């Protein structure tokens, strides 16, 4: 470690400490709504909330304050199930919103059809972050199971992003083996033998790769990869876009049960709809999310995204089928780690 090691430790400790606790921004206003979101959307919603408050004031003359709570997607879903008064949820996985719908009944089962594009105003994908100059020459998924390559990804059991990683790898292997799922499982099993550490969340995995210098490639959300590049220095890392990846659709939903009891339905609905507006789409693209309507975004922001073949969750039969099959108790991910294999 370099001479700024101690400062680095302190800084890191503080950063991750604050991540762990999550954050809720508070202020006084006529109306307050709460957006329960997941970890990597902090920067996005900070800017979007300000834009929406401005817009709402201009349209209606009312002041609105938007609180945002961030944390792991699954953990956030559980908080809402346990009674956190979210007006809207903007999570990493459809399965998490389905869980809220099922366990609490506060969201109708057909929530996904209530907004355009399966209620995903922006999408993302999974890319590789490698060390500067790509010393191991990693170009595509096939390179990840080479003898000399170590892969960093969080645990699909605890991280929504990691589930997208897993399925993206599967999609590549399936395509490379003419649709053979058994070969795909073999590949993914090999892949996880190259994973030395399973962090619990995407930010933790980024820290492992970036700060601890562990591994040769980090499987990351595209928006997180760009953010790492921006925050931690483009001199240290490169982004490699694989030939095939998955279209990650982080969905948004109105929590009917809560907005009706709080009387905030109108503003909460407008808040989510505004994500689809020209302003919302522009902000999403600025924060490295692929906007649903790219024509609204700044062309410079769109240019940053490379073209690649994207499969979707529907190719896996949707989350209702994929979740238990791959990540449920005794599912394929558990089988990969069965001892003696």
């Amino acid at each position: 470690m370099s001479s700024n090691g101690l400062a680095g430790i302190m800084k890191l400790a503080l950063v991750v400490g604050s991540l762990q606790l999550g954050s809720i921004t508070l202020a006084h206003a006529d109306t307050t709504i709460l957006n329960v979101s997941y970890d990597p959307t902090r920067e996005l919603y900070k800017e979007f909330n300000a834009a929406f408050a401005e817009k709402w004031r201009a349209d209606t003359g009312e002041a609105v304050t938007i609180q945002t709570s961030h944390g792991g997607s699954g953990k956030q879903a559980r908080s809402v199930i346990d009674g956190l008064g979210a007006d809207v949820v903007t999570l990493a996985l459809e399965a998490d919103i389905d869980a809220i719908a099922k366990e609490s009944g506060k969201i109708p089962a057909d929530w996904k059809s209530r907004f355009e594009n399966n209620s995903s105003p922006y999408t993302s994908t999974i890319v590789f972050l490698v060390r500067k100059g790509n010393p191991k020459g990693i170009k595509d998924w096939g390179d990840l199971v080479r003898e000399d390559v170590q892969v960093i990804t969080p645990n699909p059991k605890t991280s929504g992003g990691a589930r997208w990683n897993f399925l993206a790898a599967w999609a590549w292997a399936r395509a490379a083996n003419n649709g053979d799922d058994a070969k795909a499982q073999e590949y993914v099993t090999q892949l996880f033998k190259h994973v030395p550490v399973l962090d619990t969340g995407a930010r933790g995995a980024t820290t492992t790769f970036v700060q601890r210098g562990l591994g040769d490639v980090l499987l990351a959300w595209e928006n997180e990869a760009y953010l790492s590049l921006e925050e931690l220095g483009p001199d240290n890392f490169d982004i490699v876009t694989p030939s095939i990846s998955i279209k990650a659709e982080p969905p948004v939903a109105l929590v009917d049960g809560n907005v009706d009891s709080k009387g905030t339905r109108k503003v909460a609905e407008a808040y989510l709809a505004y994500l689809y507006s020209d302003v919302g789409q522009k902000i999403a693209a600025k924060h490295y999310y692929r906007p649903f309507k790219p024509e609204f975004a700044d062309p410079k922001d769109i240019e940053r995204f490379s073209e690649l073949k994207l499969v979707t969750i529907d190719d896996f039969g949707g989350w209702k089928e994929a979740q238990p099959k791959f990540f449920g108790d005794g599912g394929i991910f558990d089988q990969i780690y069965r001892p003696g294999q």
Partner: protein
Amino acid sequence: MISMAARSTTRWQFRQPSVIPGFGLALGVTLAWLTLIVLIPLSGLLWRSSGLGWSKFVELALDERTVNALTISFGTALVAAVVNLVFGVLLAWVLVRYRFPGKRVIDAMVDLPFALPTAVAGIALTTLYAPNGWIGALLAPLGIKIAFTPAGIVVALIFVGLPFVVRTVQPIMEEIDKEVEEAAATLGATRFQTISRVLLPGLLPAGLTGFALAFARGVGEYGSVIFIAGNLPYVSEIAPLLIVIRLEEFNYPAATAIAAVMLLLSFLMLLVINVIQAWSRRRYGYGA
């Protein structure tokens, strides 16, 4: 526990006479408070797991992965508690018996693991022990890996458990008069005999208390461990992480089952330690 002095001579009775009135009120407050804070949450846990049915509960509890995670949790906590017992007693001894510059600062530092958010401790320790960290980089050429192995878990648990032993042993050490050692010396005991026959037996009950506390803390520790453990199933996956994983799957029954098993095991081990402790206090104890 420390104040629960054994009175082998007095007969056991429900109500100890005291000059201060208010026993009924005090006992009432004690029971109400304990019920509210400890008993109700824990019985809620047991109640939820009892809804599983016995065979389902056994199936979940004896699941290979669960057993593995429990072994790792209890094993690493035990190792860490033993290390803490040895070095905690040493540390307490130095702090009680010697005067040196900066003693107050060191004394205060002992409590830091109590105050620090465990996640912060975990991050800092991982940074140090990772293969590119200050300590990890020195060990890596020797082929020793600490971070991302069970050894890393032990390191984290040593950190969070340290104050328990020091702080329970320290006051008892302060009670031991220096004359006791001097008497032993004048009666011809060697230094080793003085330590092993005169000093340590008296410290045993307090040491065991500290050991039990550090051990219990280690079993339940989550925040600091998940950063340094590597979290690989069957290798370095601790039971609290497995509980979180089950919750993440919205699998509340499995999570409660693991929690209930941990509760049971911890309670049994603490009970055993308490019995040994009570015995050793009767046998050697100070303040009896």
